């Protein structure tokens, strides 16, 4: 068990007359999905130990509306967006970090037109920044020394927002061997979850998208697949299981990798 930490909730913080520097937008996956909760916890621990003054919305956070919008339900999307913007503006939020590229894209690119203007960054960008500032120190010996790590580009970070370098820069710190899959960066293959696919069965076809993507993972001979999206994480974890490789290949979020490798004591 890890050392207990404090996670400030916005309403309580404001009631105490305090204000966070940054809001941690957790997202539905990060809040409810058991696998993604581990990513959320790892990132919260990093925020805590780097002395970042953050808060979460807790019960006041609701779905950004991304899957509704991409499915075609603009009405529901805007209902969600307007509600969330009201909450965020009420707390005078100026800066948001999130572990979910879908929330990231929606908050950053789609809320401004509806009256929500914030500086929005993805957690891999914040991690890169914390590392550059020397606020994250890694344990002696290198937790991932000798491992082969490959990074899976999330569509909503990569092609949708041109974020290709930050996650890779963070991984470079791990003293592991970084390998690229044959399809990466602008050519990275989707995990199959985006566009609200996560919430329905695939249309009829030859194979599931996540299984196709996992074949790229197997070809790379990596021991660790670094993901930066909770949905990619689920999809790739399922894909690895489908190929019966769950004992050899671990799918981990970049926040989890850093939390494991970093010296988070004190």
């Amino acid at each position, binding site marked *: 068990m890890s050392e207990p930490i404090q996670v400030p909730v916005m309403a309580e913080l404001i009631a105490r007359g305090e204000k966070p520097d940054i809001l941690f937008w957790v997202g539905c996956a990060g*809040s409810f999905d058991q696998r993604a909760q581990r990513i959320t*916890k790892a990132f919260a621990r990093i925020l805590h130990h780097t002395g970042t003054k953050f808060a979460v919305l807790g019960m006041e956070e609701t779905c950004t509306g991304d899957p509704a919008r991409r499915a075609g339900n603009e009405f529901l999307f*805007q209902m969600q967006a307007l509600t969330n913007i009201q909450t965020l503006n009420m707390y005078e939020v100026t800066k948001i970090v999130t572990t979910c590229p879908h929330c990231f894209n929606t908050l950053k690119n789609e809320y401004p037109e509806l009256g929500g203007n914030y500086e929005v960054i993805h957690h891999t960008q914040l991690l890169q920044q914390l590392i550059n500032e020397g606020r994250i120190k890694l344990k002696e010996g290198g937790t991932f020394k000798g491992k082969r790590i490959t990074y899976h580009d999330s569509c909503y970070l990569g092609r949708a927002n041109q974020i290709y370098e930050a996650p890779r820069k963070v991984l470079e710190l791990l003293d592991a061997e970084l390998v690229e899959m044959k399809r990466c960066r602008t050519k990275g293959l989707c995990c199959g979850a985006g566009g609200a696919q996560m919430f329905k069965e695939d249309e*009829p076809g030859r194979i599931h*998208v996540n*299984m196709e993507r996992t074949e790229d993972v197997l070809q790379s001979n990596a021991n660790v697949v670094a993901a930066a999206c909770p949905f990619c994480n689920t999809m790739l974890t399922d894909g690895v299981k489908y190929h019966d490789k769950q004992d050899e290949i671990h799918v981990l979020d970049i926040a989890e990798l850093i939390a494991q490798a970093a010296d988070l004591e004190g």
Partner: protein
Amino acid sequence: MAIMIQQLLFLAVLGITSFFVARKAREIYRNIRLGKPDDRTHEPGKRLQNMLLLAFGQKKMFQNLTPALLHLCVYVAFIITQIELIEILVDGAFGLHRFFYPYLGGLYTFIISFIEILSVLAFVATIAFLSRRNLLKLPRFTMKELAGWPMLDANLILIGEIILIIGIFSMNTADMTLHNGAYGFAVSRWLMPLFAGFSDATLHLIERFGWWLHILTVFGFLVYLPYSKHLHIMLAFPNSYFADLTSPSGKMTNMPRITQEINLMLNPQAAADAPPAAENERFGAKDVQDLSWKSLLDAYSCTECGRCTAACPANQTGKKLSPRKIMMDTRDRLEEVGRNLDAHGNDYTDGKSLLHDYISSEELRACTTCNACVQECPVSINPLNIILELRRFLILEEANSPDEWNKMFNNVEHSGAVWQLPADKRLTWIQEVENG
């Protein structure tokens, strides 16, 4: 006399060609304007830069070197040959022969030699293109949506290219032989032995044959172009100029009318003051007229290369969706709508639509919105916009949604989360992490 007949013939063919080209160009312009307004004029400097890099400089083509180099040969040969075309037009209209030669001298020899060398390269590239399509059968050239006309269209253009080059070389070589190589053209001088021993009359005939073959192929090409996928040689330029400035982008277009509806719902008093919504305005797109004019320009700019479809995760895993087919369907339907307009006037409806009659909901629902198709397109076409607008119509106007999506919508609406879980469960992980 023979010269005058040729001159008249030339002017007649030029006139007929101009008439057909102008008529079809007007029709295409009219069709594109059937789309919804979409202001894409801001930041002209950046747009110009995009056009120069993507259309003129073919930046995205160079992600794949072999086809990029082959395509470059044909493209540069095409551009440079326009110089020669100017002379052909002058010669044809005024009954002259190599009008520029006396004025330019050595420079003339250099320019024509340059065109000849590029023509050889274009010839090699064209043969390679024909082989890739018909012998090597590259996957993206043999998909279902290319069966029939699209495949024939592609081959016709390539064969036309070869005829054009044959025209140029028979003309130049015969002319060179007639003048004992005095012009000094770089490639045709090596072809002169082919015509050795021919009489002057025969050589003159071959020269005229080559000249006419060349110019008639060019005119035929111009008339054919607007019906062909090959229209991209023109429309790639405006299409990359008017493209999204950040492309690809994860941002979807906003629907201000929905915001207005929500505001009216939350604040009914405002209902009286609000301007009435335009009648028959649809949410999302059912037919081509519901799409932005840029999506319609996209459709006319598509050369059906299939880079989008080859990169599409849905298509690669055997789903029905093909972004290229989305573009081809949009163009086919738009042409059909245009024909209906011409034949029956504005009020006619044929009872068909892009959605369902051309593109099925199964295709649309296979899209993961990953933007790979947008990323790949060398001429800045955005198939994803069309997919998302059609999806909007399915949900907002037809309530046509898979059960699982309905459940997800319900969860979001009632518990604020994509899964059916109460808001207080958002605190579970916090309690766990705080307890260590």
